[in-house]
Structures are given as C-alpha cells and as structure tokens.
C-alpha cells in the first residue's frame, strides 16, 4: 500500500511530465530548477511569480495601446510583445512564448484583429500556466509537509 508521500510524489512526477508533454513548459524551466537549492529553495516559484507580474503589466500596456482606436501604435505593442517573448523564454513558458511569435508578426503587419486575438490568447495562456504552476508548487509543499523529498523528474 502506497504511503501518502509516495502517492504525492507520483502525482508530482506525472503532473510535471504532463506539463512538458502538453507544451506548457520547455527545457528552460528545467534549467531554472537547476538554480534552486537548499539556500534558495523557492527560487523557481519566485522567478515565475515575477514573470506573471510582468505578463500582467505588459498585457495591460498592449491592451491600452490597442485601445487607441484609429491611432494604434503597433511598434509600441510590438515592443511589449518582444519583452514578453523574452521573459517567457527565460522561464520556459513555451506556449506563451509561441503565442508571442505570432503576436509579433501581427504587430509587424499592423493586423489589428490579429493583435486583438493574440492578446486575448496570451492573456488566457499565462493565466492557465499560472494556475497549473500553482498546483505544482502546492504539490511540492504537500510532499514536504508530509515529510518527503521533492523527486527529481527527468523529462
């Protein structure tokens, strides 16, 4: 019969693997995990939290720029998209990064409808990732509270 810790560890492993397989995360997230240790045990959680704050701020900028009906500054939108692409790449937020590529193309071709669509998608996507990573971090906490170690997951 599985102990609680073993069950939680298996859940954690399966969930982590699914996040990679479904394309939410890429190997840069793995790189971030390498930077976490006993001294900075919450490094990944803290960096992704800053990333999500960045998302909120940048998406707000993009929305405001796109809201200037008839006078949209696409280069301004594009510059925010570029920043979002950069930070999503740095944390391994694969889907968000992918959307930014499409979004940038819409900005470059001044495609207003395309930009609005991309903005909506990016907003949904970062919030979805935020919820999933919160679930993952919660699992980590439960494992630790149950006296177990967080397993190393090889993707």
């Amino acid at each position: 019969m599985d102990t609680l810790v073993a069950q939680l560890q298996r859940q954690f492993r399966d969930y982590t693997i699914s996040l990679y397989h479904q394309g939410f995360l890429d190997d840069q997230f793995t790189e971030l995990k390498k930077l976490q240790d006993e001294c900075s045990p919450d490094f990944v959680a803290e960096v992704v939290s800053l990333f999500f704050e960045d998302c909120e701020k940048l998406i707000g900028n993009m929305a405001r720029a796109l809201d200037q009906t008839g006078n949209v500054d696409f280069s301004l939108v594009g510059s925010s998209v570029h920043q979002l692409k950069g930070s999503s790449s740095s944390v391994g937020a694969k889907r968000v990064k992918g959307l930014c590529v499409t979004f940038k193309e819409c900005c470059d071709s001044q495609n207003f409808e395309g930009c609005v669509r991309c903005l909506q998608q990016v907003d949904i996507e970062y919030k979805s990732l935020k919820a999933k990573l919160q679930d993952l971090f919660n699992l980590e906490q439960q494992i630790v509270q149950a006296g177990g170690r967080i397993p190393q997951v090889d993707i």
Partner: protein
Amino acid sequence: MPLDGGVSCLRRSEMIGIGIGELESPPLDSDQVHVLAVDDSLVDRIVIERLLRITSCKVTAVDSGWRALEFLGLDDDKSSVEFDRLKVDLIITDYCMPGMTGYELLKKIKESTSFREVPVVIMSSENVLTRIDRCLEEGAEDFLLKPVKLADVKRLRTYLTRDVKVSDRNKPKVPEDLSRFSSLAMVTPPPPPPPSITSVKSSSLEEIVSSSPPPSESSISPVDSPIRRMEMRSPGLD
C-alpha cells in the same frame, strides 16, 4: 563547494532589490570574479544574477546601459582617477535595450581607458549573424543566445579563470578547446578556426588589450550553418 560564493540566501524582496540595482552582493573578496550584468528585463536580471552567483561570481545587476556607465564611472567626461579602480572582471549585457543598446554600451566600454580590457559578453534572444558579427568586431568576447543556461555561464567562468592566472602569460595563445565557441555552436562540429580567429578569440586579457581589430571578413561566423546550441529546438520559436 559553495554553491553561490557563500553569499547569503536571497528573499524575494532582496531579489527585486538586486533586480533594480539597489542591492549589491556583500563586499568584494579580491579573489572573486565580479560581474556587471546589464538587462532591462527584471526576470532576465534575476535569472542571470542567479546563474552567475551559483558559479561563485559576485554580481552587480543594473537595468540599463546608462546605469552601467554610471556604475563604471564612465557616465561623464571627468576622469575618475580619484576613486579606487573598480574591480569588474566581466560585463555581460543584453543586446536589445531601450535607450542604449548592448552594442552601444560595448562601444563605450571599449573606448574607455579604464575598462577596455574587461571582457564584454553580449546576450540576445535573436540569432542574427550580422548582429553577432558586429559585436565580435567591436571587441565582444562572446555572444550568448538567450535563454541563457547554466552551461553557458559555466563556460564563461572557465575562460575568465584562465585570464586571471598570471602564469598563463607565457603560454601559447591557442584556444584549449572549441567548446568556448558553443554560443556559435553548430549541429555538426565546426572546422578548426583559421589563425586570425585565434588572435582575436583567445582568452588572455593581455591579448585583448594588444590585439588589433579583427579582420572584417567575418571569419568567426559559421556562415554555412545555423548558429544554435547543441539541442534541438522547434523552428520558428526563436
């Protein structure tokens, strides 16, 4: 082995403090490598700062080229002889930044008398050959493709350590291995570089000071192959 140079653990508020250049690492140990990191993205600053500290560097992270020049005392025309020579062993900067690009910062550093011999590494999310060439021609030591990984920083660290050793002065200036070119890595191993690359790319600080400007015929760039890391990436997600 200390994981982060023995510096105290960071809390989130400290992370942000470092991120906006308000907080620096504890006082310098003269043997430790001190890196100035420049990036307008907070997330990237936090990551690069952690990458460097985990490889035992002291880090000062700033958010713009102007702040970097200010930190180095290069922001005005007054000579800065009155203050102690600031010990900076490496400058690592993002290329795309508002106001002053990493390239412009590189030029200013190479034009200065105090810091022209400090190796400057450029980071960019875009894999653009002409951009890479320009930076290397202007005297950049290396070019890293973002997102930066631990292996990239470890590689930088090893050639810095070689530079600092005085005993290397009389050794032949041949790159010990081609892995230092891995930011320009190709899927297949590159051919051995022609002699002109050796004189530019060798890691000795004395060479950087005395070397003449590199030839303009981009002998450094692997024109026949894409510049990539040794990993597979989905196309179009650059």
